[in-house]
């Protein structure tokens, strides 16, 4: 690991100024992804601006009924927060399905959103990878891609985004709050991560120098039934092979609102807008769920070794939607 400068920021403005003053610097949250990548030589920052102690760890109810989560709130604390458990259960469940107790105690909301792909070629500096070194090629496309994307891939990259939390945030219509050289702004969580296209080196819509300051969960999805379900190679402490977060509002036997997002299928949490559109206005029946989910997943273009993800994601989504439609069973 190369030697680097270290600054501990005490305010948002100071953090952004410290980063701007040091080209090649990175923000440090819990460090559970960045330090790992620095050991691997994938990240070589000249300086770390530690934002882990910024006073952004509160979860507050806003006057309009939304819930604002500070970017430095630790994943374990967010998952345990009564307002999150009661009003946005899929978010609590997604957090608890990720990583381990130790990692969740260190990982921050902001760092979780910005964690990098677990693609083995990305993590191995001796291998070609367009995300790590643009133009070097994609080792995974014809190599080991069992865990890779089936939706929204490009010729340049087939990586998935590994976060469980981000999938729930996308389904729940959350917003990501940013602060940077251009001031403060908000981006919908479902649009925060990008598809790889011609620029797989860009994971998200964040602009250079911007800091994630928080996440806002809207009042409109608070209290709606929601669930997260994840399939993986072992029962715990493993990344998803496929996952789904869903919320469903059924009024008088008709679906009034649906939010569905798939994890581990794409370069970003895959908000299933096609399925949602097919469901809204329909009766929440097994046939309607099947039709909606199949319509969404018909866009999948699996590779040699990851076609299993399509039926897996389908089963997860049908299970979750069925349980949401029958509140007594959830």
């Amino acid at each position, binding site marked *: 690991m190369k030697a680097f400068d270290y600054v501990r920021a005490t305010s948002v403005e100071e953090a952004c100024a410290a980063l701007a003053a040091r080209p090649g610097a990175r923000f440090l949250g819990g460090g559970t992804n960045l330090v790992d990548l620095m050991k691997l030589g994938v990240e070589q920052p000249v300086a770390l601006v530690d934002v882990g102690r910024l006073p952004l760890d509160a979860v507050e109810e806003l006057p309009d009924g939304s819930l604002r989560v500070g970017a430095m709130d630790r994943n374990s604390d967010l998952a345990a927060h009564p307002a999150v458990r009661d009003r946005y259960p899929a978010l609590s469940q997604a957090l608890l399905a990720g990583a381990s107790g130790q990692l969740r105690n*260190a990982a921050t909301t902001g760092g979780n959103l910005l964690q990098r792909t677990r693609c083995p070629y990305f993590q191995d500096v001796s291998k070609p990878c367009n995300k790590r070194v643009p133009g070097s090629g994609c080792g995974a496309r014809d190599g080991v891609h069992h865990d890779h994307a089936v939706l929204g891939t490009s010729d340049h990259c087939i990586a998935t985004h590994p976060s469980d939390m981000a999938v729930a945030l996308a389904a729940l219509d959350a917003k990501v709050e940013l602060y940077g050289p251009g001031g403060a702004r908000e981006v919908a969580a479902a649009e925060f991560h990008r598809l790889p296209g011609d620029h797989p080196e860009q994971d998200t819509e964040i602009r250079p120098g911007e800091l994630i300051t928080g996440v806002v969960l809207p009042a409109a999805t608070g209290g709606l039934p929601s669930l997260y379900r994840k399939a993986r190679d072992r029962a715990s402490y493993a990344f998803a092979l496929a996952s789904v977060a869903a919320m469903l509002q059924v009024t008088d036997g008709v679906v009034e609102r649906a939010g569905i997002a798939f994890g581990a299928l794409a370069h970003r949490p895959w908000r299933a807008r096609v399925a949602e559109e097919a469901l809204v206005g329909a009766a929440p029946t097994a046939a309607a769920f099947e039709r909606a989910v199949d319509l969404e997943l018909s866009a999948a273009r699996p590779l040699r070794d990851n076609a299993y993800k399509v039926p897996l994601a389908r089963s997860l989504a049908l299970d979750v939607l069925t349980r949401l439609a029958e509140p007594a069973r959830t």
Partner: protein
Amino acid sequence: MGDSQHLQGERGGASASRHRTDTTLRVNGKPHQLTLDHRRTLLDVVREDLGLYGAKKGCDHGQCGACTVLVDGRRVNSCLLLAVTLDGSEVTTVEGLTGEGPTGDGEQPHPLQQAFLDRDAFQCGYCTPGQICSAIGALAEAAAGHPSRVTDPRAPSGRAVPLDRDEIRERLSGNLCRCGAYPRIVDAVEDVIA
């Protein structure tokens, strides 16, 4: 951080002081003033600088839990924490869990350490310090009402979560045991709850 061994030498040299920072850590109750190369992890500091060999380096990437220690009472993977970020923190390693015996002349094992002995909850013992620190953290989390993935979602928020075997297994899933002592580790944790 395979290169951390060289850093000791580099410290005395002319390497820019902007790559090192004075840091205070309280480890097992004792304050330590250290001038730390920013690259050093908490795991390397407790083992190499402080001679506390309880926390183990299994994977060095957050994947095994052998390096688990408590920082301000919370369990963390010390291999992924840069020590410089912890200035002012209270660190507890497995060595800090023992207490004075009734006669004040020896070391009294922590009840969980005793339970691991009673239940023979290890074979090679490499994962054991991490398992014990992790279990202590997990018990505190459950007592504070933190749910796990297997906690009934209808369980009331903010109330202590009772731990059955499934809960213990899930909450300790961040600690791998290559000897496969898992059933006895769960037995030992159950003993201290009972």
